[in-house]
């Protein structure tokens, strides 16, 4: 493992790109006031791609690239804070069924995606799961 002083800039660079891509997806298709489909799709896609990370030879060869692409790019692309805020806003809007459906569906779809893709890809080392 390279030292943190080398891994942190890699994670920062990946986080910048991932966050910008998430913003871009929101510009293309804003979430609107119902089920937040854009954020849902971002989180499911990001979870599947993190589970698939070690199918990429570059990520298997280089710990810095794995950190840049996993915790960096995909960690920055996906968002937990937005799902919390969307759940809070739906509850405040007196739509508890939609709020619960959204939170449970996001978790379920993301974990199922990680399990399904994980059947094909090598397991990630712990440090790339963060």
């Amino acid at each position, binding site marked *: 493992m390279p030292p*943190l002083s080398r*891994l*942190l*800039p890699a*994670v*920062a*660079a*990946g*986080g*910048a*790109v*991932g*966050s*910008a891509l*998430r*913003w*871009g997806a*929101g510009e293309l298709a804003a979430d609107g006031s119902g089920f937040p489909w854009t954020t849902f799709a971002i*989180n499911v896609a*990001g*979870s599947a*791609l*993190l*589970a698939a990370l070690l199918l990429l030879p570059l990520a298997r060869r280089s710990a810095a690239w794995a*950190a840049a692409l*996993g*915790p*960096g790019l*995909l*960690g*920055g*692309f*996906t*968002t*937990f*804070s*937005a*799902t*919390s*805020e969307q*759940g*809070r*806003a739906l*509850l405040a809007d007196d739509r508890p069924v939609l709020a619960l459906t959204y*939170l449970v569906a*996001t*978790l379920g779809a*993301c*974990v199922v*995606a*990680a*399990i399904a893709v*994980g059947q094909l890809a090598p*397991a*990630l080392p*712990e*440090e790339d*799961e*963060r």
Partner: protein
Amino acid sequence: MTILWVALGGAAGAPLRYLLGQRLDPRRPGWHLGTLAANTGASLLLGACVGWSLGGTALALVGTGFCGGLSTYSSLAVQTRDLGPRRGPAYAGLTIVTGLAACSLGFLLAAG
């Protein structure tokens, strides 16, 4: 310009989450306290951003960029999978309930 503020926030949030994970997450499968702290802190701050009615550059930098980069759903999903059928749902459920509570608290404190 907005995209640059989002990227800058993400460039700060993501390595902070990684550092929390390296310091507080377990070596072997167990409770991922670092990731839980990152997701909870980001939810608290995003709730406050909405409570303060932040918009424009400030929301792009702090809300979309920093909070989005600090929090993660991809790690939550893979960690939940690896914790197995008993501890996984407990970890994920705790994360979601804590995140919702932190976000509501941030919103209420900021909205006054």
